[in-house]
């Protein structure tokens, strides 16, 4: 058994024996921990059927699934809008015009430096004092778009900056203007490299949509709270809610991994096998 970190390699007979003992001990400890938790749950009577039954009754389940649908709706709408906002402000920040790059930089830095919930509260109780009251969906979604978009703007900026200088030089050499270079050369490559980040963006917005709990918008967490209150089984309902979030987000993160994987071997074989990536960067003219 060799670890990819190189911390240990092929074990001898003695070490194998020790490893077996450690494995058995850790299994015992882990089972002990789980048993302890279950015993404690039983002790405080949280395992009684009365508390779990509501979760398999269709009306309750349906209410949770409705919440899930809303969560997905907010997540997808916010992710899509945040990609647009993020790309525009990320590119704007790279612009050579200061009147464009400064406001973009300020917006990105501001929205990254404050907590999302503060922004939500501002939209929820701040804006109405000016007589602007948005539908609750947008009170929740706009802050998520601004926040997640600012994060994505930095990802786009890093993506553009990590692109080989030669790409810009080549584009300039064939006479493309800055805008054309971005549109025809840079962005297609950046977005191909950022495919996993696009999926991660959906995970981010799905998680952030749980702030519906704060604005009482019927998404998954809020509906879980309502069901838990109604059936007096908070622990059980929240556990199910957590499982739903985890299954969906874990599935999405696997997709992100898959999008990330097939490129790697191809790049290492196709791009110059003898010369590693470092020299190409140091050689390029700056």
């Amino acid at each position: 058994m060799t670890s990819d970190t190189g911390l240990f390699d092929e074990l001898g007979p003695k070490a194998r024996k020790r490893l077996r003992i450690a494995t058995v001990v850790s299994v015992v400890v882990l089972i002990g921990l789980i048993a302890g938790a279950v015993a404690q749950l039983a002790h405080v009577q949280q395992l009684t059927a009365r508390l779990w039954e509501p979760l398999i009754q269709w009306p309750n389940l349906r209410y949770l699934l409705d919440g899930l649908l809303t969560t997905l709706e907010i997540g997808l709408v916010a992710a899509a809008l945040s990609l647009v906002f993020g790309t525009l402000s990320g590119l704007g920040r790279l612009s050579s015009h200061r009147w464009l790059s400064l406001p973009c930089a300020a917006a990105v830095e501001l929205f990254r430096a404050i907590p999302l919930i503060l922004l939500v509260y501002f939209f929820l109780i701040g804006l109405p004092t000016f007589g602007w009251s948005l539908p609750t969906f947008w009170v929740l979604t706009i802050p998520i778009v601004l926040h997640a978009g600012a994060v994505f703007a930095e990802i786009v900026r890093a993506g553009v900056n990590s692109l080989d200088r030669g790409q810009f030089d080549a584009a300039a050499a064939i006479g493309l203007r800055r805008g054309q270079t971005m549109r025809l050369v840079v962005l297609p490559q950046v977005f191909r490299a950022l495919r996993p980040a696009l999926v991660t963006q959906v995970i981010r917005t799905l998680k952030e949509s749980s702030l519906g709990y704060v604005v009482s918008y019927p998404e998954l967490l809020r509906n879980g709270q309502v069901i838990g209150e109604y059936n007096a089984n908070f622990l059980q309902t929240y556990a199910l809610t957590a499982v739903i979030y985890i299954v969906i987000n874990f599935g999405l993160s696997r997709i992100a991994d898959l999008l990330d994987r097939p490129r790697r071997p191809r790049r290492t074989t196709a791009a110059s096998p003898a010369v590693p990536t470092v020299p190409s960067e140091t050689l390029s003219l700056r």
Partner: protein
Amino acid sequence: MSVLFAHLGELLTGLLTTLELAVLSFPLALVAGTVLGVCRVSPIGPLQSAAGFYVHCLRNSPLLLILVMVVFGLPYLGATIPLFGSVVLGLGLYFGAYVCETVRSGIAGVPIGQIEAARALGLTFSGVLRQVVLPQAFRSMVQPLGTIFINVSLASALGAAVGVQELTGSARQFNLDYAQPVPSFIAAVVGYLLITLTAGQLTGVVERKVRVRR
């Protein structure tokens, strides 16, 4: 604006509470994350999977859900801890998963020659980790850990949703009391900027101090 200055004390108390939340939950996350990270790189299969399971579960659920579970769920388990303590616990457990991934990539970033040399000297697995790998890994982790600290202090704002009167909570309260959205939210933004910028600067200083020159 004058109302704001008259009641600046309330917001300052909120700022202090935010700082306390961050300063107390970050070490918790650090300890939890280091233990988890060491489990994930250890040769012991069950520990690897258990730590991996924990990290996947926490990273894929919303922090607010974790906070709500800890704050409103723990009492049902027979553990009554004060509200402030449960928020610290929730933040620590949640960001422990992120620290774990940072520790893992920090360990992966230690050159393999270092590890081979340590093993050639006859150090055991725990010796290699404690005396050679972790000291170097932690140095390369200063920047990511600083980012996690900033994230912890921003995320502590979710405490407002479960009833902790930290900076966001007091800005919200101030706004409810005096209907002054712009000054109160600007004050809160300034408070968060103070924390994040200071943390960023400090991280930079520490990073330069402890960097491993190779």
